[in-house]
C-alpha cells in the first residue's frame, strides 16, 4: 500500500474496501458524545489548595487550631537557641526506605512520617540508607545508597532535581518534558518513562531506560534513549552515543572507542568500521545518532549502512541527511518507531535551552513537507 493512499489519509480518492470495512466495524467503539461534567467549583487556579478546601471546609479552622497549639508548645520543646524559620513552599514527600537518610543535617528516622524535601534542600544517603521521593503529579524516585539529590524547582509544569552523585531510579507519570534532572555532565529530560540514572564522583554518568524514553542533552548535543537502551555521559563533553543493551559486546566496545577517540583519527575510523559491520536493524538507534557525530566520509559510511538497515522514509534524501537537515533527521528518527521526536521539539520550544533558530527550522520543515514529492 503506497504511503500516498488518499483514502487512508483523509478519506478522499478511491475508497479502500478493507479500510471501509474496518471503519464500519470499529465505529462501535467511537466516542459517544456526552456533556463535560465539571465540578461546580472548578476554576482556573492550581487544583490542590482549592480542591482540599472545597472537600474539607473545616480544614482552615482545624489548621488554625493546630497552629495555636503548636505555638503554645514551642517554648517547651525547642532548645534555648535562636529560632530558625521552618522551610515553606513547594515540596516533595520523602520516605525512609532504609537506614537514616538526611535532609540537610536532619536525619529521617524509619518511623518518621510526612518528611518533606523543599526547593533548595538536599537529600543525602550514606552507604546503608535509601529513600524515596514522590509527588502526586510527578511520580516516584528511589534514591540508592551514597547519593545526593537537591530539589531545584517544583512548579506546576516544571520539576527539576539535581543529582550531584549516586543513583536514582525514576518512574515518572508527569507529562513529557515536565521532569528534568541536572547532572554534572548532562541534563536528563523525561519524555514519559522509567529509568535509572547514575553519576560517579568525577561527574561522569550513565542512563538506562526501562520504559518510554529519555532525552539527554548538554551544550547542543542531544541523545535519545528508548527503553532497553543506555547512554554514557562525560563531564564537559556531554552525552555519548546511545545503544541497545542487547547489542553485541564487540559493537559496544567499538562504539565506546569511537566516542572516546579523536574525530577523524585512525582509531575512530577503525572503531566505526566495527560498529557498522556489527550493527543490526535495531541498532538504527545508534546509527541515527552517529550521523551527527561523524563527519565527511565517516558520515557517508554511516548513512550507507543505516539506509540498508532502515530504509529512509518518504521526505528523506541522502543529501539532506548528509547535510544534517533537521526536519529530515526528525522524519528518519520517527521511522525508527522509538518515540515521536515532536515531543522533544515541543519541550525544546517551551522550556529547553535551544535559542531562536527553532522557529525558522519549523517553517523550513513545514515547507519541506509540502514539497515532498509523491511516488
Amino acid at each position: 500500500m503506497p504511503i500516498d493512499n488518499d483514502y487512508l489519509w483523509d478519506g478522499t480518492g478511491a475508497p479502500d474496501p478493507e479500510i471501509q470495512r474496518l471503519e464500519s466495524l470499529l465505529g462501535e467503539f467511537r466516542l459517544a458524545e456526552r456533556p463535560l461534567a465539571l465540578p461546580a467549583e472548578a476554576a482556573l487556579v492550581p487544583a490542590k489548595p482549592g480542591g482540599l478546601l472545597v472537600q474539607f471546609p473545616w480544614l482552615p479552622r482545624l489548621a488554625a487550631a493546630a497552629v495555636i497549639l503548636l505555638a503554645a508548645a514551642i517554648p517547651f520543646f525547642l532548645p534555648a537557641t535562636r529560632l530558625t524559620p521552618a522551610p515553606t513552599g513547594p515540596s516533595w514527600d520523602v520516605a525512609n526506605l532504609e537506614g537514616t537518610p538526611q535532609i540537610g543535617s536532619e536525619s529521617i528516622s524509619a518511623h518518621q512520617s510526612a518528611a518533606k524535601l523543599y526547593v533548595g534542600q538536599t537529600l543525602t544517603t550514606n552507604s546503608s540508607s535509601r529513600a524515596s521521593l514522590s509527588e502526586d503529579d510527578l511520580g516516584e524516585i528511589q534514591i540508592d545508597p551514597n547519593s545526593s539529590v537537591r530539589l531545584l524547582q517544583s512548579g506546576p509544569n516544571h520539576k527539576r532535581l539535581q543529582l550531584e552523585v549516586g543513583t536514582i531510579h525514576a518512574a515518572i507519570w508527569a507529562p513529557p518534558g515536565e521532569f528534568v534532572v541536572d547532572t554534572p555532565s548532562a541534563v536528563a529530560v523525561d519524555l514519559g518513562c522509567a529509568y535509572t540514572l547514575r553519576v560517579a564522583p568525577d561527574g561522569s554518568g550513565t542512563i538506562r531506560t526501562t520504559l518510554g524514553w529519555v532525552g539527554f542533552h548538554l551544550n547542543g548535543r542531544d541523545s535519545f534513549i528508548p527503553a532497553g537502551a543506555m547512554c554514557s555521559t562525560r563531564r564537559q563533553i556531554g552525552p555519548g552515543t546511545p545503544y541497545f543493551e542487547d547489542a553485541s559486546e564487540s559493537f559496544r566496545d567499538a562504539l565506546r572507542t569511537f566516542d572516546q577517540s579523536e574525530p577523524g583519527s585512525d582509531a575512530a575510523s577503525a572503531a566505526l568500521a566495527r560498529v557498522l559491520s556489527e550493527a543490526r536493524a535495531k541498532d538504527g538507534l545508534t546509527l541515527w545518532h552517529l550521523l551527527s557525530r561523524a563527519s565527511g566520509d565517516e558520515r557517508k559510511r554511516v548513512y550507507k549502512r543505516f539506509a540498508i538497515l532502515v530504509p529512509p522514509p518518504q521526505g528523506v534524501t541522502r543529501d539532506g541527511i548528509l547535510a544534517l537537515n533537521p526536519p529530515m533527521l526528525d522524519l528518519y528518527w520517527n521511522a525508527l518507531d522509538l518515540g515521536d521526536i515532536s515531543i522533544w521539539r515541543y519541550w525544546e520550544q517551551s522550556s529547553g535551552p535551544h535559542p531562536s533558530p527553532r522557529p525558522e527550522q519549523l517553517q523550513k520543515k513545514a515547507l519541506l513537507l509540502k514539497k515532498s514529492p509523491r511516488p
Partner: protein
Amino acid sequence: MNSRPDDALVRAAQQGDRSAFGLLYSRYSRMVHGILLSRVPYSEVDDLVQDVFVQALPRLTSLREVSKFPGWLASIARNRATDFHRRSKPHHEFSEESANEEIDPPPSSNPAAHSSLEAQAALDAILSLPETYRETLILRLVEGMSGPEIAERTGLTHGSVRVNLHRGMNQLREILGDKAAPLTGGEL
C-alpha cells in the same frame, strides 16, 4: 457552530470562560477518547475522558503558548492512562525489577459488553500494534478523524501521522491475514 479558532478559545478559557472550555472539550474529546482507547480498557475510557478535561482545566493557566494546547492535552491524556495502570496495580516497593514490567500494556482481551466479536477482534488487532501506530490508527479508524485532523489535534506533524497510518495499516493487514502485495522499492 462556533468558528472561533482554538487559540482564541484557549485564551478565553484561561481567563475563566467555561463555555470556551466546553467548546474545546467538544473539539478535542474525540482525540482524548482515541488516545485513551489505545491504552486502557474500553470500559474505563469514557470516565477517563472526563478526568482528563477536569485535570486540564485548572492547569490551563500554566500553558504559556496557547498554540501548544493540542500536544499538551494529548500528553495529559497519555499520562492519565499511565496513571490508571499504575494505580490499578497492587502497591509494591519500586525496584529495577518492577520497573522492567510493562506498566502500560496494550488493553487487549477486555471486550465491551455490546461489541460484536468481529469488531472486538479488529480492535484487539490494532491494540497489538506498537503504541505510536495504534494511537494514530484508532484516531483514524475508530474516531473517524482524518490525517490532517489528527495532526492538528495532537500536535504531531503531517509527516509523522502519514507514516504512522501507513506503517500501522501495513502491520494491521498482516495481523488480520490480508494477502496484500509485498512492498516494492517505490513504496515504504
